[in-house]
């Protein structure tokens, strides 16, 4: 891999200005991306419209993927049921806010409570199953995902069955600022949600960075690299894995809250099925395990492809009237799966450690090959 070590002070001396610019972007990709994303809806009208709503969804998936990254990337545990925790977060949040139930909490309180409760569910599942070896644990998470989906569907009295819980009030419902009802503003202009999700994503990214270099974060990686050695050094593998499980679930739960709030419904339980788990897992691996920019890029590519690019391409084809016969061979969505599949295979073939490998992982791989 030729990722140059970031932060090397080579950019002094006689360097062309664009090269310096590229160096700055590399070094400070996070700030650049944040500023670009923050300004974009104000200068690009489509982002203020429906596209903005789709990008909001993208941000939410980024949060979900960062949560999954804690387990799969840092700790090396394959998790095939992250969507279940996403769903549990969404439903708990809905139960705490919809008019059907007596709680009717404010957005922030409800989000915190449901994220914590989702972490609790994660602990309850993790405690008995974490001693399972790799692929057996993966299948337990998969099975748990199916159990949750079926249960959400069947406990109609609590979850509304296939109707879902509906309507989830927008954040700030009931609050008025400068004469405008904040809840109504959220409901009408998708940009409010855009910024809320962006803010939440920025917060999660910041928290993940802190965690990466914390004692706990290093313990996660130690367990991933060699569980026995880590145990020998006095790290309790079980406790470390459990904390990863809980952290992962909490972040997924938080993403679920935002998801339910942005759709104003929990949607039906099928929204939290295995397909979703797999999609997010692919995004994390494609981007680069354990790498925050990689995870974000992976989601942007995979989910963006499905929710932003594909619908856009379809309606473009329709508007240019290329496909008058209506054949599915001539629609973009007809080829969506194949394009997706080829992309996954090619990336894994030529960059098996992901598009933006984590620095730590890349360094290790190089060591091995050297």
């Amino acid at each position, binding site marked *: 891999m030729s990722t140059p070590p970031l932060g090397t002070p080579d950019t002094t001396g006689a360097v062309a200005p664009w090269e310096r610019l590229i160096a700055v972007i590399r070094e400070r990709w996070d700030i650049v991306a944040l500023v670009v994303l923050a300004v974009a809806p104000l200068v690009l009208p489509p982002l203020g419209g429906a596209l903005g709503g789709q990008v909001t969804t993208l941000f939410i998936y980024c949060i979900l993927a960062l949560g999954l990254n804690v387990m799969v990337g840092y700790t090396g545990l394959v998790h095939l049921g992250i969507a279940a925790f996403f769903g549990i977060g969404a439903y708990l949040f809905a139960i705490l806010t919809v008019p059907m139930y007596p709680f009717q909490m404010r957005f922030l309180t409800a989000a915190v409570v449901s994220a914590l409760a989702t972490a609790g569910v994660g602990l309850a599942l993790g405690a008995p199953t974490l001693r399972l070896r790799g692929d057996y644990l993966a299948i337990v998470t998969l099975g748990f995902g199916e159990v949750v989906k079926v249960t959400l569907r069947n406990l109609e009295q609590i979850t509304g069955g296939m109707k879902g819980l509906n309507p989830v009030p927008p954040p700030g419902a009931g609050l008025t600022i400068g004469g405008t009802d904040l809840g109504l503003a959220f409901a009408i202009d998708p940009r409010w949600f855009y910024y809320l999700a962006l803010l939440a994503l920025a917060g999660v990214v910041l928290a993940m960075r802190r965690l990466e270099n914390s004692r706990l974060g290093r313990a996660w990686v130690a367990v991933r690299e060699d569980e026995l050695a880590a145990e020998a050094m006095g790290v309790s593998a079980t406790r470390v894995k459990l904390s990863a499980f809980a952290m992962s679930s909490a972040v997924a739960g938080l993403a679920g809250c935002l998801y339910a709030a942005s759709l104003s419904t929990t949607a039906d339980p099928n929204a939290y099925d295995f397909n979703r788990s797999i999609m997010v897992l692919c995004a994390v691996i494609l981007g680069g*395990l354990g790498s925050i920019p990689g995870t974000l890029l992976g989601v942007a590519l995979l989910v963006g492809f499905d929710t932003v690019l594909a619908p856009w391409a379809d309606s473009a084809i329709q508007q240019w009237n290329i496909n008058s016969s209506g054949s599915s061979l001539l629609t973009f969505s007809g080829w969506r*799966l194949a394009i997706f599949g080829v992309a996954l295979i090619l990336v894994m073939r030529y960059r098996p450690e992901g598009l933006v490998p984590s620095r730590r992982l890349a360094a290790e791989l190089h060591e091995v090959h050297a």
Partner: protein
Amino acid sequence: MTFFLQQCLIGLTNGALVALVALGYTMVYGIIRLINFAHGDLIMLGACLALTLVTGLGMAGWTGAATWLGVALLVVLCGLFCGGLNVAVDRLVYRPLRNAPKLAPLVSAIGVSFIFMNIGLFWLGPADRSFPELLPATNLFAGGGLQFTAKDLLVIVVVVPLMVALSVLVKSTRFGKAMRAVSQDTTAAALVGIDVDRVISATFFVGGFLGGAASVIYGLYINTIGFQMGFQNGLYAFTAAVLGGIGSIPGAVVGGLVIGLVRALSSAYVGERWTGAIVFAILIVILVFRPEGLLGRSTKEKV
């Protein structure tokens, strides 16, 4: 009592089909430790071919022995097709990744599964397609109040010999020995002169062949195929393989039968709507108490 027996019969028949698919997972996993996500979709493509052949040959009009011969022909043709496809995919996609990080082949397998689904979408169209009933629907147990028709029998008639043949192949032939050797230690196997790549290819072929056979039985037994059928198929079969102890051939069979029975009995006594949850809840409980699956051997971690 008749009701209970009927449900068990349905469960075992369904389970036998699940087991046949599970074998494809367990063989590939046993040899290269890959959860072959595309296996279910491979079977879907096999079923596409079977449907095309059935329509093309006008098999719906055949009767008696001709039908059974035709079914045997279908099994062989679809088996060869799926086996060949599986080998080709291994050659093109998985082989270059033998030394890549562990999750890279997994994601590639998901990619292959998407490509297969897209092919199936163009082949079958978006809606489910009916697979003609080739076998007579007469009840073989006419007297006893039980329903067991020719197509139920077909599942048993095809699945049992295939499983026996597979056990013989793995246990008592040179190839089987080589396979087990590669499964245990690839490097050591290569050192003693086994052509590892060829053994892996052959394993993919056998797994694919069983999948192809399963696709024909699936079409004749369930009578509906669609481009998304691979997913559910794969989910239950893979679960069966893990439940039995992934990598273990008798384990896959036992796992498949257990899943079939659990599904039938929970539909009968708890309610159809809960079957999905019960199957997986039982899976989790079993794995908590037997972390290596029902028949899996516990492996000591090497230091």
